[in-house]
């Protein structure tokens, strides 16, 4: 009675069946959302998705899958040294896969392609750049006040002011006051005759930046500035020898239609896949730490983690065309 396969293998197959459902929910959601969103971002210059990286990762996973079957063959032929060698290589390839993935993720972080961070229209892009610039100016205010008046800078929470910037009702005014107060202190300081020359220079630079911000923000609020103009202005400001360096956190304005949905789906799919890769690596490590004690008893284990690893490969086989090519 029963199936002519080990229980552990049946368990693994049942688990993989649930995994198919798990990933097809995400992949299906992606396909459907994508079909329903005209103008989905596909330009590599905008999304920073590179076919070469995806293709290379596909090759890495296919090769690792191949190594796993060779390792299993080694196990079955009781050639445990060979099995260990190929399992080691698989683990190494998994590391390569994750490194390429990490490189891709770092590109996304650098360009702020993160769910909820992406402006989808030019106006949103302008608003975002002003928010980022306000943060720069506020941080500078606090930093400058701190060097002189550490105890007074304490009550200000920079995050709070940034989050509420752009909106000016009674409530936000109350919260913004501390930064505003610090600014006034700096104003009196720069006008005071006993301020040292170095400090004065620092403060005038800060006020130059602050004035620029106010000017740009006013134009942004009046909607009298277009996105290319704003990009131009920011580029010029970034080249300024005195305060240009402070503006590094302000991103180049690049609205992406459906960019947030795209980023959510991208990170969800590739993130869960990467998580599976990490778990697979742990499973390989469990058998590799046996070292020379590896024996016939581990045949089923190696076969089962092999099945799991092939499934991880399988998911990537579908993710590659869906995310990188289409």
């Amino acid at each position, binding site marked *: 009675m029963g199936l002519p396969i080990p229980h552990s293998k049946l368990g693994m197959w049942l688990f993989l069946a649930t995994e198919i459902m798990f990933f*097809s929910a995400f992949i*299906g959601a992606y396909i459907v959302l994508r079909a329903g969103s005209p103008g989905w971002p596909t330009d590599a210059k905008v999304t920073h998705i590179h076919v070469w990286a995806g293709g290379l990762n596909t090759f890495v996973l296919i090769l690792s899958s191949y190594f796993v079957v060779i390792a299993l063959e080694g196990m079955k032929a009781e050639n445990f040294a060979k099995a260990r060698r190929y399992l080691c290589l698989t683990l190494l390839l998994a590391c390569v896969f994750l490194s390429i993935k990490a490189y891709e993720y770092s590109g996304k972080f650098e360009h702020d392609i993160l769910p909820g961070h992406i402006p*989808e229209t030019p106006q949103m892009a302008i608003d975002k750049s002003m928010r980022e610039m306000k943060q720069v100016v506020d941080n500078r205010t606090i930093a400058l006040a701190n060097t002189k008046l550490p105890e007074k800078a304490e009550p200000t929470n920079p995050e709070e002011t940034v989050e509420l910037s752009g909106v000016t009702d009674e409530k936000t005014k109350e919260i913004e006051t501390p930064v505003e107060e610090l600014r006034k202190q700096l104003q009196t300081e720069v006008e005071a005759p006993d301020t040292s020359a170095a400090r004065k220079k620092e403060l005038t630079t800060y006020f130059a930046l602050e004035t620029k911000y106010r000017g740009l923000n006013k134009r942004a609020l009046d909607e009298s500035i277009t996105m290319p103009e704003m990009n131009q202005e920011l580029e010029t400001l970034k080249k300024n020898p005195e305060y240009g360096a402070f503006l590094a956190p302000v991103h180049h304005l690049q609205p992406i239609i459906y960019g947030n949905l795209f980023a959510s789906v991208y990170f969800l799919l590739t993130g869960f896949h990467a998580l599976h890769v990490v778990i697979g690596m742990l499973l390989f490590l469990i058998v590799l730490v046996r070292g020379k004690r590896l024996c016939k008893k581990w045949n089923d284990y190696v076969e089962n983690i092999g099945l799991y690893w092939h499934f991880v490969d399988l998911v990537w086989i579908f993710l590659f065309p869906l995310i990188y090519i289409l």
Partner: protein
Amino acid sequence: MSESESHSYVKYSTIFFALCICTVLSIIFDVLDLKDKDVAGIQGFVLLAFLVLAVACAKALFVLIYFMHLKFEGKWKYVLLSPTIILAMGLTIAMTPDIGIHYYTNESPQIDYLKQAQQASSEENSANKAENSHVK
């Protein structure tokens, strides 16, 4: 034993090369840049989607049948996998009418902006064309 072993060994490497060729094929389809072209009356995007997903299915079958040894397993594989695959496809199909294909007018700021951008680019194109013809 050794004969069958070496036999399957060769087969595995063949499968590996087949998978590599499939990957290269997908990349070639990408490089061909079919998206905006019209091939034999079929929309380029639809053709590209069909081609790369067909290649992906072929790869998936290679992995399932040979690497995961489904070719050599008993009938239980059908019992286990067919409901899963049917349900997985059913899920996607079930979501399509409401989200994938809007039966209502789809209104969102993104679409407004898309229309503006498309209009601007078409105007720019026609302006460029006029300029080019003038130069010629």
